[in-house]
């Protein structure tokens, strides 16, 4: 994850905020957090492709409605 560390320095600025927000809302930052949690727990992480497939497979089984 390219975002700042917890409680880290103030990046501020619209650009940094937007960059972070777009990464988070698109889910692009989730893999890095997954890697972090695997590292912390001593687990072997899935590859990026396998991780994304697992996420899509979950979505396949749990459809989310879109409102009118």
């Amino acid at each position: 994850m390219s975002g700042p560390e917890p409680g880290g320095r103030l990046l501020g600025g619209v650009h940094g905020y937007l960059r972070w927000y777009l990464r988070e809302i698109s889910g692009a930052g989730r893999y890095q957090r997954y890697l972090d949690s695997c590292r912390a727990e001593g687990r072997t992480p899935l590859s990026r492709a396998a991780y994304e497939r697992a996420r899509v497979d979950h979505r396949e089984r749990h459809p989310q409605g879109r409102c009118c």
Partner: protein
Amino acid sequence: MAMSNPSGPSPSSNRRSAGSGQPGRGRPPGARGTDPKQAALWVVVALVGATCWSVLALARGEEISVLWILFAALCSYAIAYRFYSKFIAYRVLGVDDTRATPAERLRNGHDFEPTDKRVLFGHHFAAVAGAGPLVGPVLAAQMGYLPGTIWIVVGVILAGAVQDMVVLFFSLRRDGRSLGQMVRDEIGVVGGYAAMIGVFSIMIILLAVLALVVVNALAESPWGVFSIGLTIPIALFMGWYLRYLRPGRVLEVTGIGVALLLLSIAGGSYVEEMGIESALTLSPETLTFLLIGYGFFASVLPVWMLLTPRDYLSTFMKVGVIVLLAVGLLLAAPTLSAPAVSDFATSGTGPVFAGKLFPFVFITIACGALSGFHALISSGTTPKMIEKESHIRAIGYGGMLMESFVAISALMAACVIDQGLYFAMNSPAGATGGTPEAAAEFVRTLGFTISPADLTAAAASIEESSLISRTGGAPTLAFGMSLIFTEAFGGGLAAFWYHFAIMFEALFILTAVDAGTRVGRFMLQDSVGNVWRRYGDTSWKPASWSASAVVVGLWGGMLYVGVTDPLGGINQLFPLFGIANQLLAAIALTLCTTLLVKHGKARWAWVPGIGLAWDLVVTLTASWQKVFSDDPKIGYFQQAQVFRDARDAGEVLAPATDAAQMDQVITNSMLNGTLQATFAILVVLVVLNAAWVCVRTLRNGGTAPTTEVPKVESQLVLTGGRS
């Protein structure tokens, strides 16, 4: 469990975290005293809002800028959010940030995942806001700008946003249970089954009406068909890219997808030069069958191929266009062409939809003011991702305020259009006759003036063959947006902006159709799976294909009925859709009221109760009129009777042109009337069941056991963002 930081770039200011002496249950943060600067700020906001509302209330017969509406709405939202939502969150519901949310307790990296408040706000907003808040206000503009404005703003503050937030809270306290499950658990089996059937059938109507809007926008529009058709290969390409080429690079592929989308819109102006204009000039019936086929395949294909990438495109386009519209309105600051209140408000003879201001404005504008469908999202994915209970305020209440702002923007876009053109576009083909001359004459009988040449010129300005009877709201909104964008940004790009807006609306709707068909399929498989276990296996092809076919067949059938209805599909089906959506809201608000009573908070039952009472009065009055009115323009059964009598006497009543169309009107009206009556009965069942539960609770000491999950102390420390 400590949560890994969501990596926000913002400072850790004013942050409350579990176990650090933060305000406990029922006590808002920072409630120590009144800051004079804050108080002065809110006085200014209130004064600006009051001034704008006064101008809107007092101005008659003079030119009014849309900015008065814009700021009246924004100031009202700000005050409601700051004071009313805070009151509901802390005093009524008693949000407690020391209590672990389902996302924290049941975290699994998939659906249960603590998510930053601002990010979840985006997800929630993308899920709740669709074409509804864009279409309803456009149709309601036939009553003038004021009724719609008041309902959108007051409705969202007292009903819609309250529903979204309170349902979200109760679902949050029940591990993210769905609306149907909560009704069954907390109200009773009768109410539960009624709600389940209601949710499924209302979803079918919703999909049919949304699809009808797309069909009406794309019929006889080769440019539109070209651009929208290309979204399918673009989405397939994006799906392949994410699956095989660059997994997880969502932003990258969405950027490519949006660029391709814009190219496809620009390319649409060359359909004539490419020699494919006639091949892409499709009738409404052809488009209906294409859409039915599309819906089926989208539902059975793996989600990564079509649904997920389309969702990305739709979300980014949605937010982008809404921002663009807000900026456009500010820069162009157009004046309103519509009157404050039109004569149709009291006569009830408007051509866009039949009936008087009460109750029909309140059901025509559902999304944007009060939308029952939001309760499904608020009790679906969102509660499983909330980090802290207090976040329901920003996500539930704030998300709905945002949708309301979209609805206000759409209303303004419709109200800047010349009134003659507005009614020529939105009256059914049976009334306008389909030609510029006949349409101009029809519009003259309504009391407006537009020449045939002006009608032709308006269509030519956006490179369409005709704008007459382009019902459904989408073309009108697109035309209004093209006027605003052209005024705001210049460049003479009216045709591009029109098709850009059509593309954006169609993209929303097709995403809702994809996702809705899939959700409907899962609901059906789940229900049948109770008696035939194998059928409930969503990966078993015979079940998934047949369930998809049933769902698509149901909404496709309704769509076909609407498309071929001689009386005009939107005119006939939109009231049914609006009432159905708000009847679902009645179920959701009934649940909220019942739960407050069961939790021993009967004194606060008025909070969802205000919205519930108004919603029941509106929807049941509208249902009653649609079923029992002896005015054939309003009552479905009376309409059927008039056409039946005429048919038996060997006559053909306009707008039907032959005996077959007479039969069609009779069948459609009977079907619509039956559906309308069924929805109302289902809701009355839920309300009666709930009333019994409330009375029993109050008699037994004022509380009753609920399925609320016991409190577990939160260990989640939020460090990365602003509160």
